[in-house]
């Protein structure tokens, strides 16, 4: 294999690898976004109903 050809092959492989990496990255990004969306849905469900009252009523005595 001529040197030129080998470099070309390597470059082709590199660009395939890069595309693959971008695809993996994008799917990981989608996954993270889905996880976050699910988490935000969950929070809508479990967050104390009357947030203002909940925060106002949380009063503690000072400690150490």
């Amino acid at each position, binding site marked *: 294999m001529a040197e030129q050809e080998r470099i070309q092959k390597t470059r082709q492989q590199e660009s395939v690898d890069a595309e693959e990496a971008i695809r993996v990255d994008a799917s990981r990004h989608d996954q993270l976004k889905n*996880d*976050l969306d699910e*988490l*935000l849905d*969950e*929070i809508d469900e*479990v*967050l*104390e109903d009357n*947030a*203002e009252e*909940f*925060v106002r*009523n*949380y*009063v*503690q*005595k*000072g*400690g*150490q």
Partner: protein
Amino acid sequence: MGVAKIIGLETEYGVSGGTGDPIMSSSQLVTAYGHLGSYINWNFDDEHPGADARDARRFTSVAPLIETHIANTVLTNGARFYVDHAHPEYSGPEVCRASDAVLYDLAGDEVLRRAVTSVANGFGGQDALVIHKNNSDGKGNSYGSHENYLVSRDVPFDDLIAAMVPHFVSRSIYVGTGKVGAETDAGLRRDAWFHVSQRAEFFEEVVGLETTLKRPIINTRDEPHSDSDHYRRFHVITGDAQLSHVGIFLKVGTTALLLAALEQFGPRVFPASPENPVAAMRAVGIDTTLATSFRLTDGRLVTALDVQRELLGLAELYVANCGGGLVGGDDEARLILSEWRSILDDLAGNRTAAADRVEWLAKLQLLEAYQERHRFSRSDPRLAAISLQWHDLRPDKCLQSRVGMRELWSREDIDRAVTAAPRDTRAFFRGEVIRKFGESIAAANWDSVVFDLHDGVLRRVPMMEPLRGTADLTSNLLNRCESAEELLRELGV
């Protein structure tokens, strides 16, 4: 000469619900949980919280009042569970490793959960109690999570001050659990929406004996609970109460290594103190950009990350020279160093990645995502509610447990630590005699167990050395003895 860094963590929890009276609620928790086993009273004979590590001539603050502690008990895992002021407090057993300090701190959270269930079963007809592991109520009331480290008495107290202030000012970048909104006069003047540290704005002095007012960065309480000729118990009151396993590990591991380095090298190799430590600590405590700089007494302008990198370098030098024997072994020391380096690298370069260990960052990311989804203003009470509910110990309510932070211990490990004491300190003897001979114990505390064989004489077994009473030294004896009488006879008490 350095000494093993025996470690103990204390947490005062927020309590609400029930009758609405926090002292009553805290007493119910301790009493109901204590009576699940043999309720062992705490022995106050050896307590001296007013003893000050400084010379009398520099005595600038008054000793705290000794209070009537209403409910106060000792558990089979070696911990103390009691009412302090108006909070339930769990003081974990003595351990030799930062990773075990994490385990027994998490076991404390589980003790509180079980105590809530016991109260619900035992005191019907009132609202369920709700426990938060946090450090303030958002209205200017703070309660502590304290760390204790055994330090050689050879280290002058002034050296502890000189060496450790830079660490306590800067470590909030991975210790902070974050909160929405300021609540002290000093904090309100800064007007930050989100705080990195819950505790930082409550600190007003550099050095002092107080823990409830005018809180100092370096607390001078000198009550070693061990042989005072050889040991100090360095009582650290600056940290946030964390749920993140790695966060607790870093808080404790870095501090233990730096104290060992101080014993070895002295204070001169440590970074200079900030010119104004209180102002620097508060500035770091609200700085989500990590870019805030402050001036040191040697004239340099530095960020918290700069100081932490220098301290890490010092700890690496210490471990390279002395190994990890005083912090629980070489593997433990290497783990502290690698986690420390990795968190500083991530905080500097890839902050999103650090959110699986650093609580304030994970909380901030959640708040920002939620705010963006609903297009709330920053003053929307739902954001403050998320910040508070983050710390709710109820599994179905706790928000911290939903964001996927890295864990070091499994559910099973934690459950085991709720009842079983650490094997490598005197906590083993304390926990085991309570488990085995609870009916014959009148009271116990950190450095003694008092037996009552119901013959009119109280017999005290002293435990002034934290590294004695281990499983290696006492498990054969404890297995061999069928009764407390036999045990005391063998001990010659």
